[in-house]
């Protein structure tokens, strides 16, 4: 992300388009994650919105910092669609630094010298928490599409069970961007007494029709790949890597912005200064997107992508509360800080304002900042000093109010 031109240049530009997306690796982290795991047996099932009691199941998580004696300094980070629990730890597959080390660490706004920070892989994902790539104990093979449909609320219920498991009564702070922000809102609505402060970033209280449309294109790309094998690719020994790669390429465009694409790539050619009169990746932007698709399939499971995009599509917090979003937060004592980015067209500022207005109507203490950025939706993962200063101010003040 930081230097996309360089990463694009590493790709072989002579590869034909049809061969550009090769078969991905085994989703090894799904079964054998490089992080702690909390296991829940049949006596503690996950009651899912689909009407299924999921058991047994497991949640893979990472932590940083130390829990204080009063157990009052816990921060829960909720990750985005294709994120994972490795927020401040090198990724076991890509070896890249933790995905939110810009915001979390010693001396950072989420200061690991002061707070005990937890991030768990959401249920339905593929980095160690139970999902479609996990083994179904009834059949001895991967769940595939037999896995129940997952909702944002299911993810949050599982996280609450993890906190119980870790002996954490309530959260000082619940924070996340995009799908992570949806979880933050769901947390504040479902367990208001367990959330002291909440920071939903670059998110919405519901998924828009346009966002559902983009997700559907991605899902259809996966399902159109013959190697998908109706979701049974793990047994068939194939991988729908072309479909998943195309899904990622399309989705990745929605995470950026036209000005950012123009600034980074423009119409620049990849190998020289002239078109090759072929369907090779002539343009740097093509090469970059192919690289994004290629690297994604190495770390992500296609069925998990289907499930998690669906969870976001189904999210509509107002609909769960009689169509009035304010009712989702009625009586809350949680303090909120909502952040949006000017160039985010996936979750535009209007979505954040709708959350803010609902919180106002519910008389909740809410702060709101719209950060000026041309980096699009992904800005929440990047170096955005204005976001950091807002987060630092809000979190420090909340810590004072909680006596931390």
């Amino acid at each position, binding site marked *: 992300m930081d230097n996309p031109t360089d990463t694009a240049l590493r790709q072989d530009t002579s590869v034909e388009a049809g061969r550009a997306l090769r078969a991905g690796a085994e989703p090894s982290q799904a079964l054998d994650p490089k992080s702690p795991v909390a296991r829940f047996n049949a006596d503690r099932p996950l009651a899912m919105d689909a009407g299924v009691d999921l058991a047994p199941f497991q949640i893979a998580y990472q932590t940083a910092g130390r829990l204080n004696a009063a157990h009052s300094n816990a921060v829960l980070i909720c990750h985005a669609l294709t994120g994972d629990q490795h927020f401040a730890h090198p990724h076991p597959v890509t070896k890249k630094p933790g995905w939110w080390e810009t915001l979390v660490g010693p001396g950072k706004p989420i200061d690991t010298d002061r707070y005990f920070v937890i991030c768990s892989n959401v249920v339905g994902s593929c980095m160690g928490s139970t999902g479609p790539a996990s083994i179904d104990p009834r059949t001895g093979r991967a769940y595939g599409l037999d896995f129940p449909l997952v909702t944002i609320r299911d993810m949050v219920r599982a996280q609450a069970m993890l906190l119980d498991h870790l002996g954490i009564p309530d959260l000082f702070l619940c924070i996340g961007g995009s799908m992570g922000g949806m979880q933050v809102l769901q947390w504040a609505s479902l367990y208001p007494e367990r959330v002291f402060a909440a920071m939903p970033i670059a998110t919405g209280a519901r998924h828009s029709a346009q966002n559902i449309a983009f997700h559907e294109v991605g899902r259809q790309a996966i399902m159109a790949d013959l190697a998908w094998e109706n979701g049974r690719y793990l047994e068939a020994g194939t991988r729908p890597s072309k479909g998943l790669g195309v899904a990622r390429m399309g989705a990745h465009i929605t995470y950026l912005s036209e000005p950012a694409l123009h600034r980074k790539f423009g119409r620049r050619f990849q190998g020289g200064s002239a078109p090759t009169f072929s369907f090779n990746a002539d343009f740097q932007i093509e090469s970059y997107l192919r690289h994004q698709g290629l690297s994604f399939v190495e770390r992500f499971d296609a069925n998990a992508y289907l499930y998690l995009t669906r969870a976001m599509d189904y999210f509509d917090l107002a609909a769960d509360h009689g169509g009035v979003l304010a009712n989702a937060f009625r009586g809350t004592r949680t303090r909120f800080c909502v952040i949006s980015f000017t160039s985010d067209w996936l979750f535009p500022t209007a979505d954040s304002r709708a959350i803010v207005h609902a919180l106002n*109507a519910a*008389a909740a203490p*809410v*702060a709101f900042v719209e950060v000026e950025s041309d980096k699009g939706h992904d800005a929440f993962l990047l170096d955005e000093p204005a976001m950091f200063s*807002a987060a*630092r*101010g*809000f979190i420090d*003040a909340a810590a*004072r109010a909680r006596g931390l």
Partner: protein
Amino acid sequence: MSGPDTLLTDAASGAPWGTAAGLPRSGDTGGARVDHLVVLGLVPPGARVLDIGCGDGSLLALLRDRRGVDGRGIELSRAGVNACLARGLPVIQGDADTDLANYPDDAFDVVVLSQTIQATRNPRIVLEHLLRIGRQVVISFPNFGHWRVRAELAFRGRMPITEILPEAWYETPNIHHCTIRDFVGLCREVDARIEKAAALDARGRPMRFSMPWWFWNLIGAQGVFLLRRGEERDEPR
């Protein structure tokens, strides 16, 4: 209906307002802006307060620390919002012209609009929202009827640049100037009851002695009003 003769007095008692509000004499403000202390004197302890155009949050922090109010703010600038966040104040980056419509009726005990109404696109609609959202409204604005403003226009023939109206006409955010008397007229139009009113000098100090309205409209650099919705008036019309 509040007439000009009740201006600058406690509308209920008829007594000159200012002394009654317990305003400090010069020198003992504890570092707070004098015009903020005027607002402080109007806000009951523990009230829910919305400060529109709250800047760096200094008034909200003062109200929280000295009155124990549950304060919220709206501020246009990100720098102001960040300063408020650092003070632990729940402040929303937003615009009085567009965001007030989303607040429910009677959401706050007191709504404060300090030195901002003249910069809104539609002051009448803003004032109507204030009266709807708050049980009481504290509003202050620069008085365009001040003698220095009049003198600049009358004798120099130029748009006035004064201590509290420091920008040139082509760069000022103040697009809807009014005089104290104009504002009283608007209060009548929107059926707002004036509970208290005061004129402040250019440094925000209240002017205490009782004088007729035309005097304040000439001498007051700023007007401060405490308003309430007209239908809540308790005296017979």
